[in-house]
């Protein structure tokens, strides 16, 4: 009997005990009709061959292990960054349970959103009644200052019209007539979570900006984009802005709501951009987006109202941060202060100290389009060589941008860009053309296991490691965190693989 009260074994050790091993072997041999082990090994080898890779890359219909989620997740995330805003997702209720779980598992925080709980009858008659009743309940129970409505694919397929539904709900006094109910159609069969983020941002801004008079001022708006590191990153962004003396409005600031303290109180809402700030943001001189692919429609709308716009690809690393600061300086006329130059110098110092370990390391990088762009760029700044850059939700234009970036550095030579491919494609790619390191999210752990490539978790979602998102990856300080993660993995690998050269000092 393997179990004892003194030393309690859980799943990790329990099933390695001989009693369980014997039981599992018997099950496999007697009842499973399992494929013989030799055949399994043979097929496993084949899955790592060039022949398999060609068949795998030729897939045109089925998607396996995609690195993307659907639009409403992004919409819920964007809405969470506004003061006391409840997401109301119109459609089937299971979806909302999924978004909430997904966000809670990453941030290790509560995630609040409601559903209009549509079922068969709503599929036939439309979901108007669900919206009328649902908005009234949400308003009464959760006392939001704003309810942000998005859609599941069910509501999209049956063609529910949010605008008219919300007007009718207000006529029925579900919420007061002047209560803000911004909305965004977020079909799951178009784009991905980054588009849902964009659509909801546009929906919220339109609610307050459309038809409102604009007096052009000097303010700056910043759209952070969908970002698993938003807690650390938005705080770091605000710190940099503070050091520069730039007063900017963050449009969707989730840094507090996804990082509330444990002090006895559950805060359903915390922090976030206020409605006064949204209204005032109309007068801003410019709206800049830190992630272009999360904000194309929103930036177009900002231009429509008369603002200047600029878009970046995730300000991580040296040049990406330089560019952001210089743009802010250009727009505001404020100098980049000495303090930030010193921080930059310290980052460069760290990179110089460690360059011998970083130079020439090869990487496979996957994630959202803006992240992959930034990550590849920073890797090249360290002397590393991206070998594979993959974004399941990246399109043709992303691919071209990536190629231009890679062409800008000798370290980008030979890197392949995989737009629209999934992580099962990446498995074949890594098995045939390996890289030293893999950068991605928790789903990369299967690739780490199958292809024996160390995984560095640097993007959403991270379920199996805790608290990384509390530390920034934006800016010079953030780059330092990223640098240390790369180095730790490199050094751990070196130690694991060393015998004679198990050096104390590296």
């Amino acid at each position, binding site marked *: 009997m393997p179990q004892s009260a003194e030393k309690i074994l859980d799943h990790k050790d329990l099933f390695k005990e001989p009693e369980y091993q014997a039981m599992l072997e018997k099950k496999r041999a007697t*009842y499973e009709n399992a494929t013989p082990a030799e055949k399994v090994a043979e097929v496993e080898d084949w899955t790592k061959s060039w022949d398999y890779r060609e068949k795998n890359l030729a897939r045109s219909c089925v998607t396996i292990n995609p690195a993307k989620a659907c639009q409403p997740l992004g919409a819920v995330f964007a809405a969470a960054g506004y003061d006391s805003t409840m997401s109301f997702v119109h459609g089937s209720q299971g979806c909302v349970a999924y978004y909430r779980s997904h966000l*809670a598992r990453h941030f290790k925080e509560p995630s609040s959103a409601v559903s209009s709980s549509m079922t068969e009858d709503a599929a036939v008659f439309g979901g108007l009644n669900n919206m009328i009743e649902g908005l009234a309940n949400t308003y009464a129970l959760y006392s939001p200052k704003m309810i942000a409505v998005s859609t599941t694919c069910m509501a999209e397929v049956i063609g529910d019209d949010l605008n008219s539904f919300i007007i009718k709900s207000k006529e029925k006094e579900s919420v007061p007539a002047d209560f803000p109910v911004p909305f965004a159609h977020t079909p799951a069969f178009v784009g991905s979570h980054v588009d849902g983020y964009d659509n909801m941002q546009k929906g919220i801004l339109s609610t307050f900006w459309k038809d409102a008079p604009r007096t052009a001022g000097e303010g700056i708006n910043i759209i952070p984009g969908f970002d698993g590191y938003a807690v650390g990153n938005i705080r770091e962004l605000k710190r940099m802005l503070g050091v520069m003396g730039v007063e900017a409005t963050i449009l969707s600031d989730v840094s507090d709501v996804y990082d509330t303290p444990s002090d006895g109180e559950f805060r359903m809402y915390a922090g976030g951009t206020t409605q006064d700030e949204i209204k005032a943001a109309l007068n801003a001189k410019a709206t800049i987006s830190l992630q272009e692919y999360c904000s194309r429609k929103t930036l177009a709308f900002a231009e429509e109202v008369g603002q200047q716009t600029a878009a970046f690809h995730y300000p991580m690393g040296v040049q990406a941060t330089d560019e952001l600061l210089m743009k802010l300086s250009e727009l505001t006329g404020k100098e980049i202060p000495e303090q930030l130059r010193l921080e930059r110098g310290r980052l460069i110092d760290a990179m110089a100290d460690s360059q011998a370990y970083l130079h020439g390391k090869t990487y496979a990088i996957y994630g959202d389009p803006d992240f992959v762009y930034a990550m590849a760029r920073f890797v090249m700044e360290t002397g590393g060589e991206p070998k594979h850059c993959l974004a399941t939700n990246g399109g043709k234009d992303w691919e071209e941008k990536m190629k231009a970036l890679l062409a800008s550095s000798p370290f980008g030579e030979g890197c392949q860009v995989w737009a629209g491919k999934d992580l099962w494609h990446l498995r074949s790619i890594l098995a045939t053309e390996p890289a030293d390191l893999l950068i991605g999210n928790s789903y990369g752990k299967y690739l780490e296991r199958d292809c024996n490539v160390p995984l560095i978790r640097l993007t959403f979602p991270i379920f199996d490691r805790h608290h990384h998102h509390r530390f920034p990856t934006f800016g010079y300080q953030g780059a330092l965190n990223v640098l240390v993660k790369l180095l730790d993995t490199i050094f751990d690998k070196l130690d694991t693989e060393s015998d004679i050269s198990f050096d104390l000092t590296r």
Partner: protein
Amino acid sequence: MAKDIADSAEANLKLIEEVLAAYPDKAKKKRAKHLAVAQPLTEAEPGIQSKCDTVKSNIKSVPGVMTIRGCAYAGSKGVVWGPVKDMLHISHGPVGCGHYSWSQRRNYYTGTTGVDSFVTMQVTTDFQENDIVFGGDKKLEKSIDELNELFPLNKGISIQSECPIGLIGDDIEAVSKKKMKDIDKRIVPVRCEGFRGVSQSLGHHIANDMIRDWVLEAGEGARAGYVAGEYDVNIIGDYNIGGDAWSSRILLEEIGLNVIAQWSGDATIAEIERAPAAKLNLIHCYRSMSYICRHMEEKHGVPWMEYNFFGPSQIAASLRAIAAKFDAKIQANAEAVIAKYQPLVDAVNAKYKPRLEGKKVMLYVGGLRPRHVVDAYHDLGMEIVGTGYEFAHNDDYKRTGHYIKEGTLIYDDVSGYELEKFVEAIRPDLVGSGIKEKYNTQKMGIPFRQMHSWDYSGPYHGYDGYAIFARDMDLAINNPVWGMFDAPWKKSA
């Protein structure tokens, strides 16, 4: 004691009234039917402590209230089909459903992932606008071909329909029939669109029906030629979360039974095909798989019985009840196994009971655990002060009375608002629920364990699991972090 019960019943009824006060009238009327306290029995019945089926259940959730429930797809793909390890399960439709449910239920299995086993993979037809407009049948057909080429050792493919499938009129049954002939493997179409029914529950039912129609009654498969032994049984409704089915199976084998199929944790399709040959179906999760047990009883003459492998009292009672269906040899074995594990139980209780005795627990889980785990807590000297189900039916609430004392707070399909208010008012020592409830509760300073995923621990079934369960409840409640919530300069004198 009786006074205590009356007091708690009264306090709980008052609490329900207070919580309902926040609702608009229409929703208040609906929600009132789902909240109650366990009632005294009108007539004493042996083994039954209270009447819990006074709440309404299995009814549509009220829109806009933050129900914790999922959908039919979650019930079919997430629960019933997803764990069948040697089949590929296509999340048919847009990318989200498969993505959010990817590897989240911890259905442990042996095998080589991506080669002969596929549980922790996300396979989807990733619908685009064109597929909605023109239909997805062609894409599905081609997807099946691609999967069969890339995963030649697969033993079949299931099609888990997402919302759009049923709305755009795709004929996944026709595709299945056609492709079954083409690739000569089982293909199972499941119409588990998320808008069907009111919760995960209908998804379980539909998934069961598809096992019936497209597996058991569609040909004998591995059952052909199998000569059943007199001790052949099936484990039904155990999804092997954290290895639960394994720490159950080991006990059944120890008492001399042969488990010929595990449904569906660590299952292969051959096990499912062979199951109707067994002498007895042992069902753990009644809610999700009673349908197929009834079918096997009617069609194949396999009797079934419920059992409960949470906590030593229920394990011993269940082992005896199971053994009673067999001969004296098995009965003697069961006694020997119970005796064998008694020292472990005693040692676990000696270690943890003093640390947990008298602690109050509130539960809110799926369709089985809100009652099945109750006696495991009782074995540790803990007390259940509230319980409720996401997707139970009336027969589940009826069974809840076997475990729950009168006066206990009962909540069906609880809303986020209600649960928060109940927890705030009762301030239990532990809440056992899901990921969506975990962090909210912990912020309030109340220890929490996820009781769907075992909070990434487990197994909790069987004697080996009980030790882990006891350890986990202790570490949750007795961690020093709960004493540090107040800043010392803010502490009242």
